[in-house]
């Protein structure tokens, strides 16, 4: 086994998979993991609430990236969940003793090395444990610049946090070196799957979901007369887009990076063009975030029409990318 190399990435799930594959001798970037697992998405579910705010997602639900990549590349990954914390910790030590590195699903709130302002009850944070020293685990957390150390009792608490998306101690690891990737086959089928999930025949999800949210913004003052509630709702959209490990612009920049890499690997000019277009789409999302925050800050009456228009532009520009990618 080679010496473990930590990697600082934008997102936890893609970061863990990229680092794990590299450790096993297969050089796959974070962006390539994101693209091959068809991780990009958009969903606005007003009826699912987290801390009183609706679910807005720019990527597939937790675990979909690991499972999507497993399927696409035919990886030999084992997943384990546990009925008791003790069993979960013993199984982790067993894998470490066997010289394996292990991916874990954890709750951000109980990880002591996180800064206070980033500690929320999010139960699907992924990290890699690569060694144990005494009563401490040595951890490669993808969203940190360097490796970190976590006491066993805290890691146990984080692995067995309860509530929505409870990890139940979930751990996963590669059993053997993965086979080389047939990019000419894997890339088109991954992109086709993303075209389907961004332009589905149903509303709420995909491009139609972006329009749905924009229409909601247009009627915001009527639906939510309290100005403080309005600010919290608008702030929530921007948080989901920028704060939650997205690499900027709700994963649109990472996807553009994937398209660029894919263009080189498969020598495909269409993907090159799609990458440039997706970068512009990302810039539109950043522009929307900037205007939203400006309006929240000034405490002036919201220009709902302007925010809705900016979001409709994001949707319209992104639709063009997916229509182009349909031709792959």
């Amino acid at each position, binding site marked *: 086994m080679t010496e473990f190399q930590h990697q*600082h990435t934008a997102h936890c799930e893609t970061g863990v998979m990229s680092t794990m594959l590299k450790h096993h001798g297969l050089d796959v970037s974070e962006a390539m993991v994101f693209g091959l697992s068809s991780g990009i998405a958009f969903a606005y579910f007003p009826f699912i609430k987290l801390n009183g705010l609706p679910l807005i997602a720019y990527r597939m639900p937790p675990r979909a990236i690991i499972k999507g990549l497993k399927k696409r590349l035919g990886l030999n990954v084992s997943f384990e969940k546990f009925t008791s914390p003790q069993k979960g910790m013993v199984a982790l030590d067993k894998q470490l003793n066997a010289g394996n590195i292990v991916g874990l699903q954890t709750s951000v709130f109980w990880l002591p090395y996180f*800064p206070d302002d*980033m*500690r929320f009850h999010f139960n699907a944070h992924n990290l890699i444990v690569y060694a144990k020293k005494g009563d401490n685990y040595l951890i490669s957390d993808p969203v940190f610049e360097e490796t970190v150390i976590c006491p066993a009792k805290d890691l146990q608490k984080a692995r067995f946090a309860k509530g929505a998306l409870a990890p139940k101690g979930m751990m996963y690891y590669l059993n053997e070196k993965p086979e080389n990737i047939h990019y000419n086959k894997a890339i088109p089928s991954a992109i086709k799957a993303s075209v389907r999930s961004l332009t589905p025949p149903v509303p709420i999800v995909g491009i139609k979901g972006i329009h749905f949210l924009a229409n909601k913004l247009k009627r915001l003052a009527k639906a939510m007369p309290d100005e403080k509630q309005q600010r919290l709702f608008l702030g929530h959209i921007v948080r989901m887009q920028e704060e939650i490990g997205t690499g900027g612009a709700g994963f649109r920049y990472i996807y553009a990076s994937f398209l660029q890499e894919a263009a080189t690997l498969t020598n495909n000019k269409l993907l090159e063009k799609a990458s440039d277009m997706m970068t512009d789409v990302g810039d539109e999302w950043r522009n929307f975030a900037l205007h939203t925050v400006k309006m929240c800050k000034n405490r002036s009456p919201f220009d709902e029409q302007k925010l809705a228009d900016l979001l409709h532009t994001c949707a319209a520009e992104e639709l063009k990318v997916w229509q182009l990618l349909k031709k792959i």
Partner: protein
Amino acid sequence: MKKDDVPQDNNRTYGGHKKVIYAVNDAGEYEKIRSTGWEAEEFVTLLAVNELNEQALAAYHRVNRGESSPLEYHMYAKRLDILGLSQATGFFQWQIKRHIKPAVFLRLSGKARHRYLDVLGLTVAEFQSIPEQAPAK
């Protein structure tokens, strides 16, 4: 976004850490850039954090006035709400609302109390009281 346009705004919410942002260099190639933060992101994070802190502070004062029990304060102090606490403990929301009442809180069974201690990560002594100093807003 161009590499040089990646904001480096020293967000205090990052606690000195950096985040990876994807941006293009002069040759048009994507790179992973370490960013100290974006002012717009800092604003919305603090908006959310302050809202939670305000809820904890309001609960703190209610407990001091005898209108509520420490359970309500600890719930918000640990960044949970009734729904989150319900999902984590397995209690129904109406049960938690009942447990929050001072008279019911005092009569909580050892078993029920243990479920709260486990989820909130507190000792019995911490759970039964609130800090002397009001939490920072």
